[in-house]
């Protein structure tokens, strides 16, 4: 692709709201005429990014280039982009015609003319009423609502209002059309219809579309390119096929489509061990490395017992129309399988997986690491504003704490570790999640859950915005208010500075 094709480019965009990063170092370019979708759960920064492009928010840092020109500082009314809002944002005190004509009436267009002396000059003029009339009629025709000009917007159905909102935006012939979950308020059938229409409209108009949604099916069905986001960070950019077939990490795999995710270990060259079996795979990783493995349910071949790679017991079977969905227990691991073949359940069967269908990813979290921890005057380690009675003698081998609270090593040297900055590491299994926000040490909210065959990996975000990643066997729900408990003895500590800086004389 040549550089000329880039219509918009976001470079190192960061956006902060009251100290929290909503968008973190966002880099993306969009080609002319492309249909790009920002996909992610609520609060992932996708709408904020869209609002940055529209000009409703200004980036904290970074630049936005439109056709190579920096528009980051331009107000929304000077940007050649238009937005379709989630709840339409129609002007309810105007009729359909005035809503669509609103932008046209404000627009000034350049024209050349010949003045009295015969010199060619440029001037700006407004659209004439006839021109506006013609454009409004054309826009209404595009959204299939001819003859609706004089209707009051409040008398229209949700779907019709949505079409008016689209007409109001495209009538201005924007270079980019921004759509902020435009189908979110419609019912399922209507949504499917509008998806098709939007796609057709995109082809016909040739305008670049940037589309925001949390609905992965919608994103897969409509987009040329999908940008998967989480916590303000881009997780993956790619075509729908790429995103589905080669998810970059466990989050993307879990968010897009259904998947089996397992913790696995590399046991040899292109050999990975999970479900108590060594599978041949196509990805190369170093030996003994802990990794995550993703297998789509439809990529697992179900067969009679003993015929496949691994045997297990089928425990559940659901008819899903086109296929059956089975759950097989392999040891303590659940395997979800989708196939059109009919099997009896409560029987042992086997599965086999093609090496190309085993997607191996680096583990995102192997341990919780807190680089901002410090030691208070009671020799407790403060993590996320909460003191823990850790064993700080591990910082200096062979040391103990004397009566005055100083650390004394085997040579009798005293250390004062008050206010010392430390790095605290907690294993994913060493954190306990408690059902209410009072009983644990730190209260927080569950922001993410990923099922990994025999356990869940959840992320608890505290009020101080600290994330704790926890492996647990129990089921939780997203947005549960919970608290966490850590056995302080199991927290591993490392001093940031040299030990000798803390010598007490």
């Amino acid at each position, binding site marked *: 692709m040549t550089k000329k094709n880039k219509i918009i480019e976001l470079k190192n965009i960061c956006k902060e709201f009251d100290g929290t990063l909503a968008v973190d170092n966002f880099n993306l370019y969009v080609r002319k005429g492309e249909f790009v979708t920002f996909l992610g759960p609520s609060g992932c920064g996708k709408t904020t990014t869209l609002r940055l492009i529209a000009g409703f928010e200004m980036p904290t840092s970074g630049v936005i280039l439109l056709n190579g020109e920096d528009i980051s500082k331009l107000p929304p009314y000077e940007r050649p982009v238009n937005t379709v809002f989630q709840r*339409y944002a*129609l002007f309810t*005190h105007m009729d359909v015609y005035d809503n669509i004509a609103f932008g046209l009436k404000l627009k000034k267009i350049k024209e050349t003319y010949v003045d009295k002396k015969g010199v060619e000059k440029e001037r700006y003029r407004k659209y004439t009423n006839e021109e506006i009339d013609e454009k409004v009629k054309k826009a209404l025709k595009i959204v299939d609502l001819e003859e609706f000009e004089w209707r009051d917007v409040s008398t229209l159905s949700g779907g019709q209002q949505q079409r008016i909102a689209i007409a109001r*935006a495209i009538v201005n012939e924007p270079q980019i059309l921004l759509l902020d979950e435009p189908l979110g308020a419609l019912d399922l059938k209507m949504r499917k219809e509008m998806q098709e229409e939007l796609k057709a409209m995109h082809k016909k108009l040739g305008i670049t579309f940037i589309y925001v949604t949390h609905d992965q099916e919608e994103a897969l069905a409509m987009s040329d390119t999908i940008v998967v986001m989480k916590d303000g960070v881009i997780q993956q950019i790619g075509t729908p096929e790429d995103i589905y077939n080669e998810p970059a990490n466990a989050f993307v795999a879990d968010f897009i489509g259904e998947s089996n995710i397992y913790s696995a270990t590399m046991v040899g060259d292109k050999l990975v061990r999970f479900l108590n079996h060594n599978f041949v795979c196509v990805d190369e990783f170093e030996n003994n490395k802990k990794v995550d493995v993703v297998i789509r349910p439809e990529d697992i071949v179900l067969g009679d017992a003993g015929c496949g790679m691994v045997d297990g017991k089928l425990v559940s079977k659901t008819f899903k129309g086109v296929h059956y969905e089975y759950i097989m227990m392999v040891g303590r691991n659940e395997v979800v399988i989708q196939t059109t073949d009919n099997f009896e359940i409560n029987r042992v069967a086997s599965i086999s997986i093609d090496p190309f269908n085993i997607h191996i990813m680096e583990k995102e979290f192997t341990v919780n690491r807190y680089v901002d921890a410090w030691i208070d005057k009671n020799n407790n380690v403060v993590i996320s504003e909460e003191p823990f009675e850790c064993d700080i003698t591990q910082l200096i081998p062979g040391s103990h704490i004397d009566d005055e609270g100083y650390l004394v090593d085997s040579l009798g040297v005293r250390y004062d570790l008050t206010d010392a900055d430390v790095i605290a590491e907690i294993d994913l299994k060493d954190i306990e999640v408690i059902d209410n926000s009072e009983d644990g040490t730190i209260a927080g909210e569950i922001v993410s859950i990923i099922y990994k065959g025999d356990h869940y990996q959840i992320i608890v975000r505290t009020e101080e915005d600290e994330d704790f990643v926890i492996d647990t066997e129990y089921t939780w729900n997203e947005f549960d208010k919970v608290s966490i408990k850590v056995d302080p003895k199991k927290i591993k500590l490392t001093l940031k500075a040299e030990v000798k800086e803390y010598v007490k004389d």
Partner: protein
Amino acid sequence: MVKKIFAKVFIYFMLLLMYAPIILLIIFSFVDFDYIDFRQLFNGDVINLNLYKELFTGEDGEVVVQAFKNTLLIAIVSAIVSTILGTFAAIGMFYSKKRMRKLYELGGQIPILNPEIITALSLTILFVFVGIQFNFFTLLIGHVVLTIPFVVLSILPKLKQMDNNIYEAALDLGAKPSKALRSIIIPQILPGILSGFILAVTLSLDDYIITAFTRNNSFVTLSTYVYGVTSKRGAIPPTLRALTAIIVVVTLIVLLVINFTSGKKDNKRGKRI
């Protein structure tokens, strides 16, 4: 059933009591005695329009009409100021950070919670402290302090009901902020602005204490005039009875017209071109 009838009788009886003094004034606007006494009605031919003539032509009437004009003047001017300032305030508050908004709300609560006499006294002390002569301007400030929090309170709910993105949609379509405010936000909250204005007029018309404290003594309004006469055991100036009757009739007509037009509003929109 009996309970229902009892409830209705109770309500209408209380309404009758509420309106009794006003009805009394209207009845006696057709009787030109100096004071009100039912026995006069039995004295034969007492019904006439003399008080109405007196109101528009007599000396007594001149004072009353002037007081009425002053009352209307301050009510309308203060309501306009309150409505303009209050509309901007409500919009500004709505888009302020939560902490700032709470601060504005707290400030607005003070005149609402304070009895009028404290607002009146505090303003008087301010004017004396600064050394301003009492004039129409000080009276205007008094009435704006009295009415503006209510204007803000009647507009804020309308802003809350509005679609969050509507202002941004206007900017997105090329409107500058001032244009977006004028042609989108203001029309959207117009009902709140109107009811705020009517409320401001009502409060100002009904006021006595703030007027008495912050006016220049030469500026006579209906309330100060009536208080001056009646608090010294004097009778209500007879021409006022005629004026009251006129105000009641005009108010009723205005209310009926408003009711009528707002009911018809939906049918008004037809096809254009």
